[in-house]
């Protein structure tokens, strides 16, 4: 218990430090008194967006790995990430025509989240249909895989259409690669309740997910309504991933690695993992964003590229460690 408290405290300090670091690092000079507040508010919004996106993905990773009893499962396995991504790209593409049609009444701050949420909701509707109809989680996995492939294909098509305009094409590509550079407080305000509710839901379903670790049939004999549990977990994972995509576009590996790293430290019970994953996921994404801004390149390195560059070797190392005997969930 004392060890777990130390871990939570350490993670909280790490999160606070990463936030503070994010405020200090960037292209602008904080010594310029006239621009200091502007820089800080821009960087603050950026750090907040990263933190929320990372937390959402970390928590979604805990839920999805518990649901499928597979430490290699990632939140994007369900297809809602690809759905949100497609929705986001369509929203960017549709922004200019809508702006002209509505005489400037449309704001990108609303349109982008709306697109992401609608994309995720469309994907979710298909998923929930299959969750209710099929009793096998493998079918759910396959449906998620098919949806991902389908949405990614359509999203690529949208990206290619977007290239007709340089600005729209650039915005779509930046969104696809994962970025928080264009985030706004309105988007953050919209997504914060989604992330908070999703995290609370993950905590609430934690005990049931613990029982599901024994397998769906054993869980059923212990009184778990497996179908209802599966439906709600899928819904909350979708809410969390769509919020993350809205905030930061596609950022890879966070949902996969964070639960992995934490299990040996805080244990396998979901109620222990959820708060820790929210903290570590947030801190990891913020630090990756600091890294993205620190690369000595003229153009900013996309956040999704940095999470991938850091995440892939870490994940390989974890895999190698598991090959040496620690294969538990």
């Amino acid at each position, binding site marked *: 218990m004392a060890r777990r408290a130390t871990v939570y405290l350490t993670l909280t300090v790490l999160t606070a430090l990463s936030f503070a670091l994010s405020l200090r690092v960037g292209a602008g000079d904080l010594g310029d008194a006239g621009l200091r507040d502007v820089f800080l508010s821009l960087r603050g919004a950026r750090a907040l967006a990263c933190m929320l996106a990372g937390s959402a993905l970390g928590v979604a990773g805990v839920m999805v790995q518990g649901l499928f*009893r597979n430490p290699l499962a990632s939140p994007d396995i369900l297809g809602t990430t690809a759905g949100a991504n497609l929705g986001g790209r369509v929203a960017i593409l549709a922004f200019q025509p809508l702006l002209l049609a509505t005489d400037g009444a449309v704001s990108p701050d609303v349109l982008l989240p709306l697109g992401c949420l609608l994309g995720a909701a469309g994907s979710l509707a298909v998923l929930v249909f299959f969750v209710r109809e099929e009793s096998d989680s493998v079918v759910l996995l396959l449906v998620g895989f098919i949806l991902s492939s389908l949405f990614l294909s359509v999203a690529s098509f949208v990206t290619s259409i977007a290239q007709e305009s340089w600005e729209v094409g650039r915005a779509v590509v930046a969104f696809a690669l994962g970025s928080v550079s264009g985030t706004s407080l309105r988007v953050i305000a919209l997504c914060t309740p989604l992330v908070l509710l999703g995290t609370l839901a993950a905590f*609430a379903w*934690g*005990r*049931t997910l*613990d*029982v599901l*670790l*024994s*397998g769906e*049939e*054993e869980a*059923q*004999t*212990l*009184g*778990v*309504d*497996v179908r209802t549990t599966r439906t709600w977990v899928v819904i909350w994972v979708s809410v969390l991933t769509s919020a993350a995509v809205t905030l930061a576009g596609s950022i890879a590996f966070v949902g996969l690695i964070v639960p992995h790293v934490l*299990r040996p430290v805080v*244990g*396998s*019970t979901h*109620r222990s993992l959820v708060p820790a994953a929210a903290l570590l996921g947030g801190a990891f994404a913020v630090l990756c964003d600091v890294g993205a801004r620190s690369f000595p390149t003229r153009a900013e390195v996309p956040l999704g590229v940095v999470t991938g560059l850091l995440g892939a070797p870490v994940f390989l190392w974890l895999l190698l460690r598991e090959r040496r005997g620690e*294969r*538990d*969930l």
Partner: protein
Amino acid sequence: MSGAATAAVVARGVTLRRGERVILSDVSFDARDGEVLCIAGRNGAGKTTLLRAIAGLGSFEGTLEVRGVAASAPAHARATQVAYVPQRSGLNAALPVARVVEQGRHVYRDALGRLGPADRQQIDAALEQAGASALRERPFTALSYGEQRRVLVARALATGARVLLLDEPTAALDLEQSLRLLALLQTLAAQGYAIIVVLHALDDAMRHTDRTLLLHEGRVDQLGPSRDVLAPDTIRRVYNVETEVGGGPRFSLPERS
């Protein structure tokens, strides 16, 4: 073993198919409070399938009730009446043993997911009865197979259900653990539990169970007192082996163990 009383499990005309194949055909029987009922039969006879059906797993024709609760009832309603110990758990997480046994009280958690003092007492008692108290802080996946089985029995006892289903509980247990587990089942039956256990070791079935339901090719071949059902003629017909009576060693737990 106490005298048989109320029917805890009632099965009538249970037929279960997988595709074209009939796994169980018109199986009918009662299991009573206060008895250990063994389900025996050759590999593929339908023993595990029948046990799983009683546990509410798998769909079938016919009726199967545990204390009046139908197999089609919601999972939480069944979990208060019947507990199932599978041959091998699917649990592959390093959960501490205490957390695993807690799962037996899952349906009794309050809205915030908490357990009450009575639940804690039940968990402690279950760990004690199954001889798993010393394991409570250890990760489940770090335990030996025999230790894991004791924990699963403790989880089943923690449910408070008075009908226990165990699928080959002595498989891969050493001699002492095996005898202890069988003795525990008899003790529980004496306390009024209805125990249904799948056993391959027929000598164990004869010595430690009250009645045997012998399944052969998905049908009930015989049902009655274990010593009568597992007679040499029946064993020869069903198992195609001869029975040698007496002569071999006979194992038992030491006094006051």
